[in-house]
């Protein structure tokens, strides 16, 4: 069964995103919300790890949380899809189950 993994912590502060990416399987999705949206940026010390995950998992980021933090779309890694809260709901419905990396 496919899993939508949600991560809400900055990759620079906590190990949640790193641990999450180490436990995904092909066909899973990873949605970055709250302070985890920093994980979707290019040119940071955590970008390579997220970039590497793109070939097997779907990467999503919550637009409202990006905007709150002043992050424009042109700073995101290629291939990351921006969704709103409605899109968040659609993702939860699309994947078979949901796992929060708290």
């Amino acid at each position, binding site marked *: *069964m*496919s*899993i939508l993994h949600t991560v809400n912590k900055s990759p620079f502060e906590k*190990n*949640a995103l790193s*641990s999450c990416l*180490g*436990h*995904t*399987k092909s066909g*899973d999705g990873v949605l970055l919300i709250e302070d985890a949206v920093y994980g979707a940026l290019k040119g940071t010390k955590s970008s390579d790890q997220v970039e590497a995950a793109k070939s097997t998992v779907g990467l999503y980021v919550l637009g409202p949380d990006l905007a709150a933090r002043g992050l424009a779309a042109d700073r995101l890694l290629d291939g990351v899809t921006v969704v709103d809260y409605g899109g968040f709901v659609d993702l939860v419905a699309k994947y078979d*189950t*949901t*796992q*929060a*990396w*708290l």
Partner: protein
Amino acid sequence: MSEAAGGGATSKKFLYVNRKAPYGTIYALESLEVVLIGAAFEQDVSLAFIDDGVFQLSKGQSTDAIGVKNFSPTYRALGDYEVTKLYVEKESLDERGLTLDDLMDVTYEDEDDDYEEKPSIRVVSRSELADIMAGQDVILSF
């Protein structure tokens, strides 16, 4: 329960994921409280211990000097609640300099095998744990 709910007569597979060390925060303790209550619902229950969650199972916890209740004996009682699958991630142990010997003995009596006492803790690789996660209906994280 309706079929549409994915529930019904057949049970769901519940996985409780423990990623946090004990005592520093209450998540480990309150996770255990969910597991104990959940045991009454006769679902297919597994626990995963990854990252700092592996520290929850450390032997020899003694909390008198911090004035906090030592809840570690409860893990050893899980078998009585028919919670018998405690998956501990090998990579998480390795990174923390731990081996299986550093963890408590947690066992259960196997009713399908003449009530033989068997270990509940199963050390698995990160990749095996990802497979276990992928096989669940409900994943609760703490």
